[in-house]
């Protein structure tokens, strides 16, 4: 072993490893994309509607946490001696409940009357909802980004060879919990009703399933997942300034994840989210520098779409999507 190589190894050992740091970044980004994608898919599976207001719901969720935790001090004001993380977790729970109620209200007011209408028209309604919710949220956010007041700050687990922010650990745990709860939910009575409704609304109705309740529940779950993604986007190390008027647009980056995974597959959304997250993180770590100049700037942002196109060519319904059979 040459001395030079020893120096390199020593440096690698004493500083965060590039690969390990890329993995942390991939988990962070992929987890957020997965939360967004699963929310999209749950709403799509139950209602056949592609929710263009998902990003607006993500920003609204983050804004609610910022408001509860830093402006209203709820529930902190009622539990003055509680540790900061308890108050903040309480604020997050309240924000998630509010997001669920808002999701249900949006579905009841704007989408229920559209049942039976052309899906294109329903999608346009969700575009309108996006504009309304986004503008109201941005108005509330105001001219400056709103920090979420989380207790994690910039703390990291420094293992020498890798630095893992507390927020990434928390996000990973929350995302895994969310997926486990959703898996459990799909085995419950309502979950089975949701799957039946997704399969055939009329048949489900004939079997006594309250389709309206299924729609409502799917929007509540979708809104909660969007809000969770919005919260994690707005924390260190991603957008450390908090929630701002551009937060809502982040959700659209989850589209390749949904298409890669399959539009109607929750597992697919999860896997698609992680694939896109790791692809972006990998490309932004390794496909840069003089050797890769021919790719141009911002190549990492294109990678998810390239992957999406490759998947669409090989499996037009996505990796886990249901193949649609048309009789002619």
């Amino acid at each position, binding site marked *: 072993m040459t001395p030079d190589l020893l120096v390199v190894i020593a440096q690698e050992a004493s500083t965060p490893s590039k690969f390990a740091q890329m993995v942390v970044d991939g988990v962070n*980004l992929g987890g957020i994309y997965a939360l967004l994608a699963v929310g999209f898919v749950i709403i799509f599976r139950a209602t056949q509607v592609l929710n263009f207001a998902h990003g607006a719901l993500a920003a609204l969720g983050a804004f609610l946490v910022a408001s509860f935790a830093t402006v209203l001090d709820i529930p902190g004001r009622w539990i003055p001696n509680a540790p900061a993380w308890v108050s903040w977790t309480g604020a997050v729970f309240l924000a998630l409940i509010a997001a669920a109620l808002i999701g249900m209200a949006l579905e009841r007011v704007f989408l229920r009357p559209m049942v039976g209408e052309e899906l294109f028209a329903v999608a346009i309604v969700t575009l309108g909802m996006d504009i309304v919710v986004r503008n109201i949220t941005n108005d509330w956010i105001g*001219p400056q980004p709103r920090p979420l007041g989380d207790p994690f700050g*910039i703390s990291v687990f420094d293992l020498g060879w890798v630095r893992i*922010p507390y927020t990434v650990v928390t996000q990973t745990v929350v995302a895994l919990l969310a997926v486990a709860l959703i898996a459990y939910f799909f085995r419950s009575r309502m979950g089975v009703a949701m799957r039946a409704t997704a399969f055939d609304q009329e048949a489900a109705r004939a079997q006594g399933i309250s389709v309206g309740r299924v729609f409502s529940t799917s929007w509540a779950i979708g809104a909660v997942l969007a809000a969770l993604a919005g919260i994690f986007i707005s924390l*260190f190390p991603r957008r450390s300034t908090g929630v*701002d008027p551009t937060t809502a647009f982040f959700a659209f980056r989850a589209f390749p994840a949904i298409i890669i995974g399959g539009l109607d597959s929750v597992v697919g959304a999860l896997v698609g989210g992680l694939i896109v997250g790791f692809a972006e993180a990998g490309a932004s770590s390794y496909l840069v520098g003089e050797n890769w100049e021919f790719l141009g700037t911002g190549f990492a942002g294109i990678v998810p779409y390239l992957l999406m196109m490759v998947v669409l060519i090989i499996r037009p319904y996505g990796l886990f999507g249901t193949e649609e059979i048309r009789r002619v």
Partner: protein
Amino acid sequence: MKIKSRWLAIFLTLGLVLAACSPSGGDDTTTTAADGGEATTTTSGDGGDATTTTEGEMMDDPAVDVGVDLEAGTITVGLLSDLTGPFGPLVAPFVTAHEVYWEEVNENGGINGLQVELEVRDTGYVVDNHVQLYEELKDQVVMFGHSTGSPHTVAISPQLAEDGILAIPLTWYSGWTDPALSSNVMHHGNPYCIESMNLISWITEQMPDISTVAIASFAGDYGQDSAAGAKLAAEALGLEVVYDAEGLVNAADEASLTEVANGIVAAAPDLVWLTANGTALGAIFGQALAAGFDSAVWSGAAPTFSPALIAPDAPLKDPIAASWYSGSYYEPWSGTSAGTEAAKASLLERRPDTTPLDFYMGGFVEAQMTHAALQAAYDAGDLTQAGVLAAGKAIENLDFDGLAPPETYVGDANTQLQRVIHIIQPDPEGLATGMSGGTQIVEANYTAQIAADFDFQSACYTLGS
């Protein structure tokens, strides 16, 4: 009705003359009127009574065409503002400052009795919207009190020239000093590339060990004009550019932010020059910090820093406060000049719930420039769009009472170029206590040698190049 209006006009004029004669203890700002005559605007130090008189007493109605209604007693000024786009957080306070300024002026008699009204349009920072809204307003307003964005203002430049309308660009692109683009604009402040020279020089003077720099920026005039200045400064000061991401940063693209953060960490520079916005700074700084990169000095063009980064609940508050420097041509909220104090008093009187924010001060500068152009045009007896343009472009040594360095619109480009800047630093304590807008001056009225020596021939960055 006509008789009533005439009586009203006589009383108003008498009132104005009496008010002008009263001892106000204010400071004088001298401007050169379009016809070469001299007009004096007197503003009291407390931001209170403001009125105007003119040598030679222009008593006849001025010539008017678009945007001035002598019957209704109004002058209409347009604002093409990005209220909902990426610079909404910066522009919204500018608009508020315009509104407050004109409320005060109108309460005190307006411009020789004419009340100034604003027509504000949200462009969303979209060039097409900007051009469309310009077309909508050009037949309603006498001038534009601001026009947000360089590509946007460049897009309406031929039309401004054809229509003979004056506009104040709310952008600090160096092209506004270039005679090729400056015919219909009144620029203000340090252009981005001069700002880069000033800041990088100052930082290396204070920290002589700095020998390497990473440069990253938004694409377009703002980021790349600033990056061009940073490269000129690096060359002049002997700094090695170890990472160049000029034009790569995109605040809406998470991948670009991660790529730049990774590039900076890998290059490990002594100084990071980043020209973007608060969101991008938070994301890039945060990701670099998460990867263990915490030893560099960070700096960039002024709107890159956002007070939200150092808010009491902001996670990056301490590391940003310890390592960030930027510049400002207008005094920040924490400034103490008479002009700044008057602006703050006016704002707090009319908007008591205002949270301190430095951007308000920039809005007051623009409003005072608008006022100076309108007043000079009135004094010259020509309040037409062309008259306001001629009057504005003849202003020399426009003084802001310390709120900003004086501006001049006569002479060659090097004479008009603003080279003076305040070096500022984040001030989390001041922000938390409401004593500042999040920054404080560490060195006032600074001009680097390389900025002073800079021979302006054309814009540092050519739009579309």
